[in-house]
């Protein structure tokens, strides 16, 4: 009896200590044949070539990358469930970044694709690559050069938000535009 109590409280404390984390995210189910699944060959090689050239905002009216306001301050594109389409509400964001890249030829950026936690992790890597390529395609159509963009697919491995429900998942289905040097 006594030892049961001891064990019981131990198991409780274990249970408590064991539940501290959660979060991983992946997103599954995707697919939906998507426009433009075939995208231009990947930009660049494995190495990042970060340069300072073109860091100064020029005459585009976009403002500086580091200003913290304006369209360039938005660096995350979110996606609907099961989709890699850039939603209309994010098109102005993509357009602003495309214009900035077009006018700053020396600036490079990494497009980091992410998925929510549902489904298998390696399939989610593939899904998140599709999202990043969708943004890459849109940026290139609007003036960014191939050599300015690289893609990194994180799948569900780096969630923005932990949590196991749609309100968390929607924040994790995303592509982050990460400028070198900023």
């Amino acid at each position, binding site marked *: 009896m006594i030892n049961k109590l001891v064990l019981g409280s131990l198991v409780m404390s274990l249970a408590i200590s064991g539940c501290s984390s*959660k979060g991983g995210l992946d997103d599954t189910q995707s697919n939906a044949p998507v426009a433009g699944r075939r995208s231009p060959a990947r930009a660049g090689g*494995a190495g990042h070539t970060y340069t300072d050239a073109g860091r100064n905002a020029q005459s585009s009216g976009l403002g500086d990358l580091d200003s913290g306001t304006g369209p360039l301050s938005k660096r995350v594109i979110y996606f609907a469930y099961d989709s890699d389409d850039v939603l209309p509400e994010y098109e102005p964001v993509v357009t602003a970044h495309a214009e900035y890249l077009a006018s700053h030829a020396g600036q490079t950026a990494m497009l980091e694709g992410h998925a929510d936690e549902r489904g298998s992790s390696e399939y989610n890597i593939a899904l998140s690559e599709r999202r990043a390529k969708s943004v890459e395609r849109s940026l290139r159509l609007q003036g960014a050069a191939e050599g300015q963009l690289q893609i990194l697919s994180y799948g569900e491995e780096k969630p923005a938000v932990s949590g196991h429900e749609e309100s968390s998942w929607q924040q994790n289905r995303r592509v982050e535009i990460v400028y070198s040097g900023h």
Partner: protein
Amino acid sequence: MVSQLRVSWLLGFLLLGLPGLVRAELTVDINQGVEGGMPIAIVPFGQEGLGGDNLARIIAADLEGSGRFTPLAEAQMPERPVPPEAVNFPVWQSAGQEHVVIGRVVPGVGGGAYEASFTLFDAIRGTPLLSDRIPFKSADARHAAHRIADLIYQQLTGDRSIFNTRIAYITASGAGKTREYRLQIADADGQGAREVMNSSEPIMSPVWSPDGKRMAYVSFEDRTAAVYVQNLSTGERRKVSATPGINGAPSWSPDGSTLALTLSKDGNPEIYTLDVASGALRRVTHDDAIDTEASWSPDGRSLVMTSDRGGKPQLYLVPAMGGEPQRLTYEGDYNARGVFSPDGRSLAMVHGGEGGYRIAVMDTGSRNIKVLTRGRLDESPSFAPNGHVILYTRKDGGRDQLAMIAVDGQGQRNIPIRGGEVRGAAWSP
């Protein structure tokens, strides 16, 4: 007599077992009983001088986790005999027990040395079926218990046992700059975890080589995806694939010479095979869709993979040398991460449906799918080397866990893991 034994056992447990309790944070909790499992009573061992869990408790947890036994709860035991001649068979028969195990641990020769002796009885006939002595060092007490569980399991089922095998898994904890990923290996019951490697960037998809000596995995430590092969005894490791884009989903060929991989260097995720010694790469699939998560058939001739070439992710079988993929799954909108059982007669997979993502098995002959688990986010199935149990990850009630379930859906047990969120699980050969 009975009550005296009980008191002395209790006392022994309290006095000697406390240091062990501190280490018990990974104690398994069995939350889904076994219906129709073989009744067996593992009587607490007499183990003066040895701390930690009573070996009987570890043996009972192993047997119950196999899905094929229903060990009698200690509280329901009619007596607690230690020497073989003390067993009173009629009281065990009355308690519905077909088999009774008794044992004791005595100090051996040398510091920290012990010897466990045990006897497995047929409780109906009152005859011993198996009796053995296992010498061990105090630090290996759990392994001695697993060894006894192995011997009992093999005696009563005739099948290979798995209690001394290991599992690999990845944990992730923290957020942002403090995030930490760890590749760990533990005993099959989750105890004795040790770290293989850690990184502030993601680690994914560990997989054991067929001889159990090496592990392949994906690491983002260079801020790009790469596949590594690491020798588990020396720690030496080698980057075997770092092409532009995805380098993922490694799977060892049954002869240990070749890795199947997913690479997107040619524009989108395709399956390749890589000769690990020579570095020779062969492309297996050619399709604009996602092809990933290849896993070898036991005969080394085929790969099962996940592809959304039909619009939704489904499992396909493709010749390892390349050829036309054949679709295997049609039930449901989501079937992924297929892995063959060791005998090749079934496939485990992640099966998505309305209730969530669950572990299912498909009979490769009839193609019938049976859903085994009931969670919302059950993933990463991996067969035990005897094919009777599947290891997987689950997220339920805010708690990340490793879990095991028998392939007939019986005897699910959780293995709470320290270190945060649990991803990627792989059972050793």
